[in-house]
């Protein structure tokens, strides 16, 4: 019985933390936020070379072949420093190809995704805002051997930097008749809009398809047979977002605690007052708790246990509710300077606005759990 990380995993954590502290402190993060694509290609390239982007991609395709439990160590660290990168998007896109792609497709795409030279993104969400198969309405119409895609994907991650979209579409009216296709940004008939976001470290956009032609070698697996894979990708996405949220919550608490130790009012550091202490303690209780839930969910997904999807939903529901609150508390406990652009705490609050809906908000995950439990 052991519900903790191995020495190797802790070593990885230390390495990632050292790398990010040195190369991407918050001053640097602010510079990346101001860039067009919201990405520092050189840092991203280094992370690829270090084997971190392809951490969970099988070794025969250029990855490190490690499990999700190891991957969440990496994400906790990128979350702590609000590191802007298309890591989550690329990992989910690579997983789609790993799960549904042919050997030829894997050989063609996975090495680039693993080393970060190809940035991927999974496009599934549409105007219904549903994070499940019913939400996939983008239409795929067969034309000979090819498929024509028409419809709109919105709130797609990292549209400004992605080189490859994994697109979920509906190939027939039945609920499960969903499919996956690979689409590159330059495809004829595809329009991409990039949205400004509250959290400039996380980019979102819209893909508009009008008869975008998908040749057979760009379809992942048999048509109308991707339901199970898409469900796995949604679980994986929710897991990764929540793992990163652990680091973000801890970063917000650490930043606010440090401020509360320094800031003196009424003759004492404000951290001495229970009005400051107690909300921070509550925040710590919450992050430790959704941390336990996300660790377990990662293990359950690795093991493929039947409860894995529920475990993911518990973690994401908890995080979706508490991270926004932790951000709000952090800004309030900073007082006036919390409202300034200069202080960092506002960046954590903004991140919570991205985390809350990403891969389903609390409401979505509560109702998913209710189907099993109520």
């Amino acid at each position, binding site marked *: *019985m*052991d519900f903790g990380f191995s020495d190797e995993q802790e070593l990885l954590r230390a390495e990632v933390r050292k790398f990010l502290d040195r190369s991407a402190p918050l001053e640097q993060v602010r510079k990346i936020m101001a860039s067009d694509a919201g990405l520092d290609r050189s840092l991203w390239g280094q992370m690829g070379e270090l084997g971190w982007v392809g951490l969970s991609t099988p070794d025969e395709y250029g990855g490190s072949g490690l499990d999700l439990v190891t991957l969440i160590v990496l994400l906790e660290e990128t979350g702590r420093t609000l590191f802007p990168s298309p890591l989550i998007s690329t990992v989910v896109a690579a997983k789609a190809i790993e799960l549904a792609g042919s050997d030829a497709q894997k050989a063609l795409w996975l090495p680039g995704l693993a080393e970060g030279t190809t940035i991927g993104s999974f496009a599934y969400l549409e105007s219904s805002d549903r994070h499940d198969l019913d939400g996939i309405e983008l239409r795929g119409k067969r034309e000979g051997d090819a498929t024509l895609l028409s419809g709109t994907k919105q709130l797609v991650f990292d549209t400004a930097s992605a080189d490859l979209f994994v697109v979920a579409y509906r190939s027939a009216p039945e609920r499960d008749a969903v499919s996956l296709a690979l689409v590159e940004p330059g495809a004829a008939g595809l329009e991409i809009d990039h949205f400004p976001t509250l959290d400039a470290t996380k980019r979102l956009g819209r893909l508009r398809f009008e008869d975008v032609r998908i040749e057979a070698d760009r379809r992942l697996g048999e048509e109308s047979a991707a339901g199970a894979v898409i469900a796995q990708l949604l679980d994986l996405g929710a897991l990764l977002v929540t793992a990163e949220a652990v680091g973000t919550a801890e970063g917000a608490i650490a930043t606010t605690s440090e401020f509360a*130790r320094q800031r003196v009012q009424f003759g004492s550091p404000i951290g001495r007052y229970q009005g400051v*202490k107690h909300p921070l303690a509550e925040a710590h*209780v919450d992050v*430790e*708790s*959704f941390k*336990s839930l996300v*660790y377990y969910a990662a293990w359950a997904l690795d093991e493929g246990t039947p409860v894995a999807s529920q475990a993911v939903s518990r973690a994401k529901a908890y995080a979706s509710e508490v991270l926004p609150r932790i951000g709000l508390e952090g800004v309030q406990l900073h007082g006036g300077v919390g409202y300034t652009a200069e202080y960092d705490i506002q960046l954590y609050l903004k991140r919570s606005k991205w985390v809350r809906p990403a891969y389903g908000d609390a409401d979505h995950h509560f109702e998913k759990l209710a189907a099993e439990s109520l």
Partner: protein
Amino acid sequence: MDFQLTPEEEAFRAEVRAFLDENLPPAGERGPGFNQEWDAKVRARGWVGFSWPKEIGGGGGSIMEQVILKDEMAQRRAPALGSCFMGLAWVGPSLIEYGTPEQKVRFVPDILDSKYQWCTGYSEPDSGSDLASLKCKCVREGDEYVVNGQKIWTSIAMWSKWMILLVRTDADSEVKHEGITCLLVPMDSPGIEVRPIENMAGTSMFAEVFFNDVRVPVENRLGEEGQGWQVTVSALAHERSGIAEFHGLMHNLEKLKDLARRCKKNGAPAIEDPEIRRRLLRAEIKIEAMRLNGTRYLTKQLRGEKLGAETSINKLHRANLEIELGEIALEIEGGLGALKVGADAVPDDGRWQHMSMSWPEVVIGGGTPNIQRNIIAERILGLPKD
């Protein structure tokens, strides 16, 4: 990460299960002598004081075995392992660490055999959360200590034969934690008066205890004079995963869901009400988080690390849940939620009414939620002390 048990651990789990199959009849089918028989049977197995060393009569169970035993017992809602509750929780561990050989022989076997009850004389009217400020006066006269003062919130004082008592032997000590001494006191000593306190649930579980020139032989001192504070903070390595609490809370939650299926809200089953659904699911997620937090504490213990302030996290969850489950229940009951235990129409024999009136036992008993928050903020987040 690995949730597998070793073959030895699996074998122990099977042994506990077999014992329960044989010796634990369903709740409705237990005769009047059941509790006594149960105490004797689990004692014979060495499962009373299971975390205590074998030399002293305990079970010598490893951390993992303790978890397995509690897990199985709690899943089946078995009675406690031994019914000398305070003796097992507080007195025994202190005796094992600080008792003289005579004291150990005199008291430990009786605790393990559930012979009589102990109570703990710690809190005072002016020393609750700030326990170390206690003032109960104690002066040595020859071979005796003379105690004058008052204790309060002393659980089961009226049914106890002995008390483990904290007194102030040095009123001038600069550090308040020093100058405290621990005594073992027979409750029939002349000068002791016990006045039960009625709680808001209408029952009396705790009492005020008054000491008026109570004489206690020096041989009944546990540890040295002035060492009382350390004496009561046991360093025994017992598991703290809280696995039994998890099963208790899940049991209540399942009952609550059942209530929500039976009761109506705005004309529809309460379980279809979006707000009730959310509150039930939020509670379920928190209970699961407690289980997993506890498993992380357990891992730390198994790796030989010491547990610190992190256990306050689950104490806070437990406190919140204890209140929240009762509140959800009364809201589900609607108008019936205003009835008292014993009322004719009260749902589920009034268990929710009882819960909603007795939560302070859990919530206040082991250190109030605000104290837990202070502990987390100061010891984990490094904020300045109050």
